[in-house]
């Protein structure tokens, strides 16, 4: 082990800490450095984290001490635990699993060609905020983008739109993915700091099946909006090499809300191409590369004043995987990635605007992660070291109605560079076969820099004292206890997490929010937002009956939200005023879901879920975008080659709406859906058919999550066909 290498690792951490952190990180970095070499030594490492209520102590003697082996002692109590990776039904879970399109038929009644947005919406944990028929924004635990960590296969990627018109879920398609991993609250902090939770869109695993070439063709049509989808999927899988290529194309006209009311500017068109390839060097080493290119054009946003003429993403990565059961590190996966997004807002299709404008935005991210897992006795360790560097730039040009005046220009995201490096460590300890304890910690260094002089100077108009850079330390910690018995399982968890302000919250410059009709100015002086979280989950099964309860509570300190500054004059014509991002001293968010199912027979079942959510701030105002009382009831009939489901889904009246933050009361609604599926074998090939009716009664409705109350789709007949050639 050389000192130079220690220095190299340490340099990541040596930026700008207060002394207590410095001790922590010096030790930590030493630890990491040691991990890279075989050392026959006795190590005693104490990690003290004053802010995080965490006390680590480890004393262990080992022949080969390789990776970061952290035994977590907390108040003399050993935390640790299992790896709970159960694939559940999407209505109840922590994890939605996208089993390839071909297998969906025997899984759950869905469209084979539904978008990721549709998929995510099927999870009770996730609500999609809609500004149109495309690029919905996921929200979990009543928190959206800024408070979530959304990653693609562990890769950080950030939307390039200042108005959140391009959540990153819009840049991948189902055809790219294997599954979506959802972690509520701090359990979602593996890939980044979060308050509400983490969503990781996972690309397909290595496929060295030796199954040769497989082709599948998908076609879909929906009557509402004349929505056409086509997909082609080619997969070659050999012994040492695989190649997976797929493309998907989607095009929809304006959709109709209930009672045939056309929703103008709700059209979209997009295609997505992906190429994944892997080469197996030997039994232990694999190299993989993936490229995804996604391009949407002519996307309408009926809830907003502008549409999108281009949303384009290029997502690339190379990965090295090591697997060996006989070494101490059983798996080590390292990835180097780059992605770039271009997003162009445009209002040229709108006949009537107070002023014409262009708002392009760019976001480039470079990053890496390296994660290792190992099992020692009853401990399962997982360490993830990651870092990224992001550049976010957005500008606005307005063309005055008086042609003699020259165009007006500003940087709405003044070239913000974000540098993050952090480490995540998790220990899962199986106390008994049916009992486990886990603890996870993430610490990281986060830096924002305003790279453009103009950007700094423009923000100094509002904050004359600020400098170009801002450094933060972020910590999150979570622990979870699980018991699984024959008839019941219980999980109890607690956590603490911090997040930095997002680029818009920290540095946005006159970002118009059509939801509350205010211009927003970022605040570079915001403190970290901090959350203390408790969650509880219990399930009871008895023969054919199942009952589950899931609840979580968040106490958020320094909750970041816009606050009206009456002294400021809005930039957007017609805006009500200007809001500056400020922090409420605290906010509380609570949710509870109760679900139950009963199987009448092997093929016939009934299930239902009801949910209640609550959110309020220290100013005694309700928080915006809190889901009202919601329910879902479903009758399922499922045979190996046929399935059918009738679904009733609705929300109660939104009585606790947030008038203070620009919300109005959304009335109750209920809709009825029917889904059917068939599967046929034609020679060696397979044919899958999915069809059904959504919103059978053609209800005209909107939900609390619909931006400016734009109505949702009315009655829709759909049919999806997949043909798989082996």
């Amino acid at each position, binding site marked *: 082990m050389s000192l130079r*290498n220690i220095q*190299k*690792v340490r*340099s*990541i951490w040596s930026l700008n800490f207060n002394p207590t952190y410095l001790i922590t990180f010096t030790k930590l970095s030493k630890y990491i450095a040691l991990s*890279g*070499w075989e050392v026959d030594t006795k190590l005693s490492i104490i990690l003290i984290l004053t802010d995080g209520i965490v006390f680590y102590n480890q004393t262990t003697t080992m022949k080969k001490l390789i990776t970061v082996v952290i035994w977590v002692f907390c108040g003399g109590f050993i935390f640790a635990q299992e790896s709970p990776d159960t694939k559940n039904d999407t209505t109840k879970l922590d994890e939605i699993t996208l089993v390839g399109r071909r297998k969906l038929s025997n899984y759950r009644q869905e469209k084979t060609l539904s978008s990721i947005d549709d998929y995510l919406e099927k999870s009770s944990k996730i609500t999609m905020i809609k500004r149109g028929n495309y690029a919905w924004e996921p929200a979990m635990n009543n928190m959206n983008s800024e408070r979530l960590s959304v990653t693609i296969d562990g890769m950080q990627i950030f939307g390039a739109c200042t108005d959140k018109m391009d959540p990153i879920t819009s840049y991948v398609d189902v055809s790219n993915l294997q599954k979506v991993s959802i972690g509520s609250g701090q359990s979602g902090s593996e890939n980044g700091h979060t308050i509400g939770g983490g969503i990781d869109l996972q690309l397909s695993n290595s496929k060295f099946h030796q199954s040769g070439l497989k082709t599948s063709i998908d076609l879909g049509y929906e009557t509402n909006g004349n929505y056409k989808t086509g997909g082609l999927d080619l997969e070659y899988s050999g012994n040492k090499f695989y190649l997976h290529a797929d493309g998907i194309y989607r095009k929809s006209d304006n959709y109709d809300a209930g009672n045939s009311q056309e929703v103008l500017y709700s059209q979209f068109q997009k295609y997505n191409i992906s190429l994944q390839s892997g080469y197996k060097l030997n039994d232990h*080493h694999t190299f993989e590369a993936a490229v995804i290119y996604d391009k949407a054009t002519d996307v309408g946003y009926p809830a907003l004043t502008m549409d999108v003429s281009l949303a384009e993403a290029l997502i690339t990565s190379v990965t*090295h995987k*090591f697997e060996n059961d006989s*070494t101490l*590190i059983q798996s*080590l996966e*390292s990835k*180097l990635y780059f992605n770039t997004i271009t997003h162009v807002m445009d209002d040229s299709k709108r006949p009537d605007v*107070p*002023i014409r404008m262009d708002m392009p935005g760019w976001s480039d991210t*470079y*990053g*890496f992660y*390296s994660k290792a897992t190992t099992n020692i006795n009853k401990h399962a360790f997982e360490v993830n*070291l990651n*870092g990224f*560097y992001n550049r976010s730039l957005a500008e*606005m040009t*307005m063309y*005055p*109605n*008086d042609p003699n*005046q*020259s*165009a*007006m*220009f*500003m*940087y709405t995201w003044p070239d913000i560079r974000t*540098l993050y*490096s952090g480490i995540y460590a998790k220990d899962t300890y199986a106390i008994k076969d049916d009992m486990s304890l886990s603890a996870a910690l993430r610490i990281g260094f986060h830096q924002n*820099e305003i790279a453009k002089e*103009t950007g700094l*100077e*423009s923000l*100094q*108009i*509002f904050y*004359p004292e600020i400098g170009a850079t801002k450094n933060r330390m972020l910590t999150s910690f979570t622990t979870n206890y699980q018991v699984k018995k024959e008839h019941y399982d219980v999980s109890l968890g607690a956590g603490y997490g911090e997040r930095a302000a997002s680029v818009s919250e920290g540095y946005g*410059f*006159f970002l118009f929010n059509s939801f509350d009709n205010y211009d927003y100015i970022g605040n570079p002086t915001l403190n970290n937002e901090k959350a203390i979280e408790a969650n509880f989950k219990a399930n009871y099964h008895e023969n054919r009956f199942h009952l589950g309860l899931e609840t979580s509570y968040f106490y958020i300190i320094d909750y970041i939200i816009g606050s009206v500054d009456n*002294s*400021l*004059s*809005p*930039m957007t*014509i*017609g805006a009500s005023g200007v809001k500056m991002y400020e922090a409420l001293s605290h906010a509380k968010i609570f949710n509870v879901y109760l679900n139950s199912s009963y199987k009448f027979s092997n093929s016939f079942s009934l299930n239902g879920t009801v949910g209640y959510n609550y959110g309020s701030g220290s100013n005694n105002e309700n928080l915006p975008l809190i889901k009202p009382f919601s329910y879902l009831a479903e009758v399922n009939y499922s045979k190996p080659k046929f399935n059918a489901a009738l679904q009733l889904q609705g929300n109660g009246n939104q009585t606790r709406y947030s008038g203070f933050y620009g919300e109005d009361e959304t009335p109750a609604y209920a809709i009825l859906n029917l889904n059917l599926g068939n599967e046929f074998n034609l020679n060696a090939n397979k044919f899958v058919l999915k069809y059904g009716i959504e919103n059978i009664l053609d209800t005209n409705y909107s939900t609390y999550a619909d931006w400016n109350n734009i109505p949702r789709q009315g009655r829709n007949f759909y049919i999806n066909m997949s043909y798989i050639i082996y």
Partner: protein
Amino acid sequence: MKLKYIIPILFIALFTVSCSSDDDSDTIINEVENLKKIQELTNATHTVELFNTSGKFETGYNAISIRIKDNGTNNYVENASLSWMPVMQMPTMKHSSPKSDILKSLGKKTLYEGFIIYQMANLDGSGWSLKVDYTIDGINYSVDSDIIVMQSEYQNVTSFMGADDTRYLIAMIEPQTPKIAINKLKLGLFKMETMMSFPVVEDYKITLDPRMPGMGNHSSPNNTDLTYNLANKMYEGNLSLTMTGYWVLNLKLLNTLDEVLKGENVTEEHPKSSLYLELEF
């Protein structure tokens, strides 16, 4: 075996290296090289060369650099003392304009500098003449010539009658290149004492309210009213410009007793003060 250790380290190294910041080094700008010649005024012995950054006179504030060439030797005179008098010939009368004294440029051997604020111009640029009197080694010389002064696109100077029946003149001196930031705003305030005399008015106050008429009269925060700076004899304050484009600087002029001499507050009904300057960038 080794590979699995090397790759993460490689990533870290790559990452740390790739994030180094790049700094720009300042380049030294030679002021003379960036100037353009406006006009030459010639007499029997000397050529007086007038320069500024644009190479032409326009209404408003004009910073002018001057060089005197000895026609006999073609050398530039280094020890002259100069004064000047711009004159506008109108059909029935003539008048001058506010101007500074001419001083030797700091750190320059052959350059002298000063400013003239032309408050008006004919469409074809005619009407103005400039007389330069200078002394070299105790001998007085003079040169006088018509000059061309064009109308600026935007109102950067305004002449008005105050409530005290005095004619005043306000001109924008800085920012010459406005930016999206808090700009240092410098205005010159002069009183028309006679047709030929425009002394600086001291210790008044000028209030500032910048607006964008193209954006629903959008305003900006953290502007400050202008106060008199004895050192440079100008009125100084902060001007916040939140975006590029066309801005109207609505002003009010207050005397030492805080009585309003000209200008009004901007309201919904009254979107523009009668005392204003314009800029676009």
